[in-house]
């Protein structure tokens, strides 16, 4: 039992997610991101290549200045790491925060 728990706790996933909405990761999308991240027990880390921040903190996410086209590296560590990455991928890349993508 203990061993199984340990395996679960150590689950770690990561993904590179591209910001697709034209306005980028401004405050409203940042809040959506943090809302989703906080639904999970896993630790969530977000990096834009220069800055590495806590994916559950709205102030942290607001300082990434992730413009449209920016690729963010998301790392999740914990019992629900995989679900967390899947949910964030859906929000960022599929739903692009329910906002328009750039006009072609």
């Amino acid at each position, binding site marked *: 039992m203990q061993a199984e728990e340990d395996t679960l706790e150590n689950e770690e996933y990561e993904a590179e997610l591209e910001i697709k909405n*034209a*306005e*980028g*990761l*401004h*405050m*409203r999308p940042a*809040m959506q991101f943090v809302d989703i991240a906080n639904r999970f027990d896993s630790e969530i880390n977000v990096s834009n290549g220069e800055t590495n921040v806590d994916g559950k*903190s*709205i*102030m*942290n996410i*607001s*300082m*990434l*200045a*992730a*413009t*449209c086209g920016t690729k963010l590296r998301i790392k999740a560590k914990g019992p629900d790491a995989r679900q967390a990455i899947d949910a964030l991928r859906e929000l960022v890349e599929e739903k692009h925060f329910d906002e328009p993508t750039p006009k072609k």
Partner: protein
Amino acid sequence: MKFRDFVCFEATITDLQANGRDDVITQLVSSLDKAGKLEEGKCREITKEVIKRENEASTGLGKGVAVPHIKHKAVKSVIASIGQSSTGIDFFALDKQPVYSVILLISPADDPDEHLQAMESIFKHLQQERFRKFLRQCRSAKQVEELLTEADEDPSL
């Protein structure tokens, strides 16, 4: 982007005597208007839009700070004014605590990247406890200017 480069110190109010959130927003927008930073005649429209945006979701992100903001064509580049209240304002903040430092930000309508860079600059400092504490202690626009200049030079502040 440096913090002090887009703050209008002339429009800084370090002794806000305000009757609630909307009054704070009204004073800070009008202060920018008086400093000549907004297109003429747009002050009321901007005030209304900032309040409308704030009603959709509070920009009081906790820890005593709020960053009300909109994008508007009345500005050509990002401009901010800072307000301080010693008694605290109810900004319907996420942590339900009063807000002591308000940074009002108006960004151009057609440059989302510039808006994001200004936000980055603001939150890089606001998330530091020391910076928030020093900001709250500022009693004049000059002190705010000195703090921001120092903070721009020293990322740990």
